[in-house]
């Protein structure tokens, strides 16, 4: 089936998320939609899938104009979608998830579960998947859940299949498998839209590449284009991914983590016997595919995990077993991974957010009472110093752009007297200008002789920012290597292959 989008425009208030987008996807073609986070790719696909209604423009399938009032219509027309955040019901089985919405029934509205199971088996066999139709989805690994999503779409005979950032949660190896599946689908004549911001994947499978920036199409590229060309199209100017920094000058302070275990409420060990040392004056990047224990490691450092064993010492002081408050007072600066959730109170003002973790101490509070003058003076200073673009210090922080929100968090953390900085994905969803600024401030902190731990999922950032790189896989440390290690070696390590073997393989 041939998909064509003509002049799709979608506005949210004053924001134009999609600006007259034209797109054609032929059957048996993998069409990549490349763009930065926030470029409007997912909005476009949600319009296609009937989740949003476009303000202007039309959707054509085999040259017929379609009118979707909901995903049901889109599916009936032959459009399937593998969502970035899986649209699976965790407490249902695979078969129930696959049949949901187009259930076959026997008499009296009874579910025909056997038909659902058969459908799962049939599609799974066709693609060589290994999926138990009666397994509960919540108990399946992420990679398998994604296959359930694919089965779900195929069970409705989708002729146009949209993959929305499908590789964000996959290991490099799982990603390769997904690419193989896409090629097989393509050979069966399915039209595939592949949304991503990762250049490597694009060049590997794309037949055509369309680059989106700020809601508009900025160009097409051939799969043979270089990384630099594609990246320049994506961000609108030539980007330099390197961070200027001198060789580390080691200071005296030191973070020592030894035999650290973190487990969740169900007893799954998420951080498994992790040991490392970070010296003052160096940046240790913790790299890995999302969900391999990095988040929990960072949270354990900040005292946010409840069942932790092992030892974390900062300049000889044990941090395990201490409260978050005590750890903050011991000199931890913490930039959490999800700033909108953990780093900021969106409805609080910029000024309030800048003193969020200091509301009990002078000069912001005296005798339990807030000192508004001190708060506002501090806020004005920091807004200037960190170039936070806001209409004022009384604006709710949730209204700032991602980059400026992150600057608020960074300003708050860096303006305390630190002995350790832990920054989890500090540049996620941040515009390019702010990324450079944030990198610069992190390097300055390192150069002040403070140990710095940065979590990164993007290889580029890991290599650019780190002095050494610690790779995690399934909660364990695969290895700690210098930042000069070849990228493909680090990539293999992210799939759980030990550095020596990885080096040999690469």
């Amino acid at each position: 089936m041939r998909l064509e989008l003509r002049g799709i425009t979608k506005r949210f208030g004053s924001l134009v998320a999609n600006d007259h987008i034209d797109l054609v996807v032929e059957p048996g073609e993998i069409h990549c939609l490349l763009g930065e986070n926030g470029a409007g790719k997912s909005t476009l696909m949600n319009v296609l899938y009937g989740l949003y209604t476009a303000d202007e423009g039309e959707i054509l399938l085999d040259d017929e104009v379609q009118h979707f009032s909901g995903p049901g219509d889109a599916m009936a027309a032959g459009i399937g979608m593998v969502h970035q955040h899986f649209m699976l019901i965790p407490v249902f089985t695979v078969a129930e998830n696959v049949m949901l919405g187009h259930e076959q029934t026997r008499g009296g509205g009874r579910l025909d579960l056997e038909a659902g199971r058969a459908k799962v088996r049939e599609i799974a066999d066709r693609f060589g998947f290994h999926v138990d139709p009666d397994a509960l989805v919540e108990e399946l690994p992420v990679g398998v859940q994604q296959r359930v999503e694919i089965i779900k779409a195929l069970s409705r005979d989708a002729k146009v299949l949209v993959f929305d950032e499908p590789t964000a949660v996959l290991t490099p190896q799982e990603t390769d498998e997904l690419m193989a599946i896409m090629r097989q689908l393509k050979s069966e004549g399915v039209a595939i839209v592949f949304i991503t911001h990762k250049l490597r994947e694009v060049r590997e499978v794309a037949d055509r590449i369309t680059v989106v920036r700020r809601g508009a199409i900025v160009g097409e590229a051939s799969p043979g284009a270089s990384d630099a060309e594609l990246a320049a199209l994506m961000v609108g100017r030539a980007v330099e991914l390197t961070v200027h920094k001198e060789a580390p000058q080691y200071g005296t302070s030191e973070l020592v983590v030894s035999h650290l275990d973190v487990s969740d409420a169900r007893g799954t060990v998420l951080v498994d016997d992790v040991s490392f040392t970070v010296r003052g004056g160096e940046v240790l990047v913790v790299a890995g595919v999302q969900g391999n224990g990095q988040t929990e490691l960072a949270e354990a450092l900040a005292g946010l995990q409840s069942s932790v064993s092992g030892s974390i010492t900062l300049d000889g002081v044990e941090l395990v077993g201490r409260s978050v408050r005590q750890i903050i007072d011991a000199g931890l600066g913490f930039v959490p991974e999800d700033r909108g959730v953990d780093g900021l109170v969106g409805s609080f003002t910029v000024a309030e957010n800048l003193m969020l973790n200091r509301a009990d101490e002078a000069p912001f509070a005296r005798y339990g009472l807030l000192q508004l003058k001190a708060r506002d003076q501090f806020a004005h200073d920091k807004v200037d110093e960190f170039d936070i673009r806001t209409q004022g210090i009384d604006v709710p922080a949730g209204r700032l752009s991602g980059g400026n929100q992150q600057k608020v968090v960074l300003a708050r953390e860096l303006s305390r007297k630190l002995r350790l900085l832990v920054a989890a994905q500090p540049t996620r969803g941040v515009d390019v200008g702010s990324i450079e600024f944030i990198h610069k401030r992190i390097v300055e902190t390192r150069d002040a002789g403070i140990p710095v731990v940065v979590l990164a999922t993007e290889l580029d950032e890991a290599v650019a920012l780190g002095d050494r790189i610690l790779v995690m896989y399934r909660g364990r440390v695969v290895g700690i290597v210098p930042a000069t290690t070849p990228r493909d070696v680090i990539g293999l390590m992210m799939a759980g292959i030990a550095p020596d073997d990885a080096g040999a393989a690469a």
Partner: protein
Amino acid sequence: MTALAPAPAAVPDAGEHRRVQVISRKAPIAFAIVTGLFAILLLAVPREGDATFRFATVGDLFTIPNATVPGMATAWTAVVIMGLATVAAFVLVARRRRVPGWISLVFAFVFLVGFLAWAAAGSPSDIPAVRLIGGSVLLSVPIVFGALGGVIGERAGVVNIAIEGQLLAGAFTGAFVGSVTGSPWAGLVAAIVSGVLVALVLGVFAITYKVNQVIVGVVLNVLVIGMTSFLYSQVLVPNAERFNDTERFSRIAIPLLSKIPVIGPALFNQTIVVYVMYLTVPAVWFALMRTRWGLRVRAVGEHPSAADTVGIKVERTRYRALVIAGAIAGVGGAFYTVVSVSSFGKEMTAGAGFIALAAVIFGKWDPIRAALAALLFGFASNLEGALSIVGAPVPSQFMLMLPYVVTILAVAGLVGRSRAPAADGVPYIKE
């Protein structure tokens, strides 16, 4: 077409992460506390004499003789058995094994027998097993219907604090329409309609206008109390004969079944509404767990956006579930006026809707468990009456308190573990 995809071996398995086993020590601890408290009670308030349990009713197929047991001896025997069960539970947990459900059941039954033996010791009256069971069933009818309504609503993602309001509205219209028409059937239908109306108001505010569901529920209760009390004083009281004096459903004895000793007269000599209840419980279970409707209802309650992406209309599904739930709760309301007594009284439901809510949670959002929980709560209320007959030194208020205490223990995770539908109480805001 042959598979190009990688071999299954490449698929990562679940459980690659190391696991440490989490074992709950709650059962043995709870056992130990109950056993200890019971022993203290026996020591503090010893009672003389025998206790008699009566099982027979006139017309039984065969007669089970009364059982007379020495009160204190029976009670202490119960303590010993409970102690053994506690030890067994501790041993199981120490060996990192689960405590099976039947041990809990035995524990509860032995405790009940021991407690009754203690309570009735030396009393001239006996403990009528038939009335104990039959009365419990009757007291739990509105709670069961309310809880079933609550389960359906919450499975669809709508928290229904207004069960109380639905019961009360059902009781009022049941009495009014039943009196005006002179037919309990008409009263029943009217009660169903009013249950649905309350549900629709809940739906309009909670689903369409996305008002916090707890707020709507609390306020709806007040609204229904206000309206029914106002109309009661203004309309029903001045014309009580015309408007507030209904025919009631009469009891129907089911041939044969009603002759079974103990449970026959207790369970099978009841009104049509009670038999409807017997059928509704499994029917709701079947509908929720085994039909397309149920799958969709549960889907919108667990993950509405996932349901939306496969073309299920979330709001419409929730409305439909609420309407059905309201109808069921309405039947429970009708029970008050077309089965139990023949006239409406101000706030006559007296918190049964909240007990139903408690049963929903205690029953872990499962229709059958919730109905059993409702039955248990009905039993607790009924036990209070039985105890006062035998003159047991247990203040009635503490028995009446029981359902609420048990529910708090349940939500605190001390009794079982409750997991609500994931999107329960969350309005669905389309992107």
